[in-house]
């Protein structure tokens, strides 16, 4: 009944019972934070506050505080936006696509990966909002009648598609996450001793009691949400890429963008999941649930998607040459050999070269090495967006308009601020939410738990 091939490595190590899973998942919430948590939280909070300062300065003074100029009128803001949205993609991929493929190893990482998705999309959404200059008029992006002062929104525009895609993606990811959280909040509620804590989890758990009919509905709702989230996640980065692909700028106007962006998004997202989980499993001693095998699986995905991204880069170069269009050819030659050559080659090194180390089992099962590569990949993916955006813009149609872009301290401050904000949210989440989907994980204990597998083999 609970049989799984002995060839498969156990997904839960150690001699665990159902109750042990409960205790282990509740531990970070019921005990005081380790010192490492406080250090990380303080650093993140300082970065976040610095970011708030820079955002307020931008809103108070104007977009002129950024390093933008007439030629490069889109730079770090959109780079950061695309970077953060891309990071979000891995969470949905883990929770939805791996659910549809019935990959059991997703269960101990999907909760945190989805949290990462939501927190990353929050950071992403900040950038278009700040870039509006007058964020209090942000409601203009929604279809509101002409009497409000603007015309109807333009449904032909990819920027508006983006509004719809990001709002749908954010809100659907949020309910997907929350539906899964409810049974685990109920577990915390039933364990809580402190009355305030009990009351908070009572509110959050919506009265969940684990009735048979409710579980039946829960499973169908999860499956349907996964089915909806899968095309949704692909659509989001497709639409983000159309912000560029539907324009006529050489270097942007390519049909390869949607799949290339989606692959890049999954690539960077998995790298961020690795960064977060490697820290978290250490900080909260979750090594029995987030095993080396989980890390290895994710490294393989990083390797595959990194190679897809590499093929996309090469295809882009080939198509530029093959098109015979001088402007297109120049755009790509300029990327590799022009004044931004260092950004291009950083991108190539970090994204195409570094994941190839994962072909070696020794390296992809090394925690330290994985951690380093995960950071390298995220730097590389940030450069990818920077290369696409800034190097395509900085050589305008008239050579007299050719410029360079250099970020102001506000550009840098806002970017660092969003990283801080992201980690503030994630660290708070790690201390107050069940970081592992314990109810789901209990369903595979008897088939994939180390102790149960040993009994099976006898």
């Amino acid at each position, binding site marked *: 009944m609970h049989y799984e091939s002995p060839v498969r490595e156990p997904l839960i190590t150690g001699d665990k019972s159902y109750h042990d899973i409960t205790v282990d998942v509740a531990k970070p919430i019921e005990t005081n934070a380790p010192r490492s948590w406080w250090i990380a939280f303080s650093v993140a909070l300082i970065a976040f506050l610095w970011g708030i300062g820079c955002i307020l300065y931008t809103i108070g003074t104007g977009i002129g505080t950024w390093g933008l100029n007439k030629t490069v009128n889109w730079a770090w803001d959109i780079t950061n936006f695309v970077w953060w949205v891309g990071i979000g993609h891995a969470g949905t991929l883990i929770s939805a696509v791996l659910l549809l493929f019935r990959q059991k190893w997703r269960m101990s990482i999907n909760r945190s990966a989805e949290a990462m998705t939501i927190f990353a999309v929050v950071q992403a959404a900040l950038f278009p909002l700040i870039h509006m200059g007058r964020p209090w008029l942000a409601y203009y992006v929604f279809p509101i009648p*002409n009497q409000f002062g603007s015309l*109807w929104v333009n449904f032909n525009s990819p920027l508006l598609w983006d509004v719809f895609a990001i709002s749908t993606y954010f809100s659907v990811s949020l309910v997907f996450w929350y539906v899964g959280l409810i049974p685990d909040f109920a577990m915390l509620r039933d364990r809580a001793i402190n009355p305030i804590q009990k009351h908070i989890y009572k509110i959050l758990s919506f009265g969940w009691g*684990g009735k048979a009919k409710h579980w039946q509905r829960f499973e*169908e709702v999860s499956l349907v949400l996964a089915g909806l989230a899968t095309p*949704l996640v692909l659509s989001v980065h497709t639409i983000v890429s159309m912000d560029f692909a539907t324009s006529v700028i050489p270097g942007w106007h390519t049909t390869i963008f949607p799949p290339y962006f989606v692959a890049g998004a999954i690539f960077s997202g998995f790298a961020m999941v690795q960064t977060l989980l490697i820290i978290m499993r250490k900080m909260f001693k979750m090594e029995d649930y987030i095993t080396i095998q989980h890390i290895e699986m994710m490294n393989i995905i990083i390797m595959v998607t990194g190679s897809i991204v590499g093929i996309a880069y090469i295809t882009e170069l080939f198509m530029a040459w093959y098109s015979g269009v001088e402007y297109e050819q120049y755009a790509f030659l300029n990327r590799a050999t022009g004044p931004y050559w260092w950004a291009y080659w950083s991108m190539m090194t970090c994204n195409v070269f570094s994941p190839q180390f994962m072909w070696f089992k020794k390296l992809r099962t090394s925690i330290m090495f994985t951690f380093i590569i995960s950071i390298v990949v995220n730097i590389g993916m940030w450069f990818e967006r920077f290369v696409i955006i800034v190097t395509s813009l900085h050589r305008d149609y008239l050579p007299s308009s050719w410029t360079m872009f250099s970020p102001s301290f506000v550009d840098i401050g806002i970017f660092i601020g969003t990283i801080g904000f992201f980690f503030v949210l994630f660290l708070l989440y790690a201390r107050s939410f069940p970081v592992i989907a314990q109810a*789901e994980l209990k369903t595979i204990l008897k088939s994939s738990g180390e102790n149960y597998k040993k009994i099976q083999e006898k």
Partner: protein
Amino acid sequence: MANKSKSVISVLFNDDDVMLKSIKPIREKGYNIREAYTPFPVHGLDHELGLARTRMAITAFIFGAIGLAVAIALTYYTMISDWPQNIGGKPSFSWGENMPAFVPIMFEMTVFFAAHLMVWTYFVRNGMYPGRKAMNPDPRTTDDMFMLEIEFDGGEDELRQLLKDQGAVEINLVEKAEEESPELEEAHA
């Protein structure tokens, strides 16, 4: 409150497989299992209890269709009917001609409606809302205990024996059948 014509016993198991195996003999003896509380979705439990298939997926399909219709109506009204514009040399003459540009909106709205309204339906059908009192009578059923609530008419000892044989770890009488008591009737009236 209606008079309870049947007593209810709650039985706890500490293993999902033991609980699952016990259901068939209990039901074969003619007892009605009123409810089961489990810490995680036990596969095959709905089948053993004879629960009907859930229609959550069907509601999602209907809500998705509504979302698609809303997106079509919205794009038609704003772009074609109310205020047609010539944007970038691409005039808005008919919805059909502009439709390719609306596909992303139609898709997003379909997903938005299907996902959110299905989850709302799920909450309503389950009777779940923020701050509701926990529905499970025993807090251990969200940890590692599996509970069945069984209705019976007299013959408590017989049922207890059956449950013990099936591997129950705890058996409690939770509701006693009420005799026809006129005082109570009046008190409620």
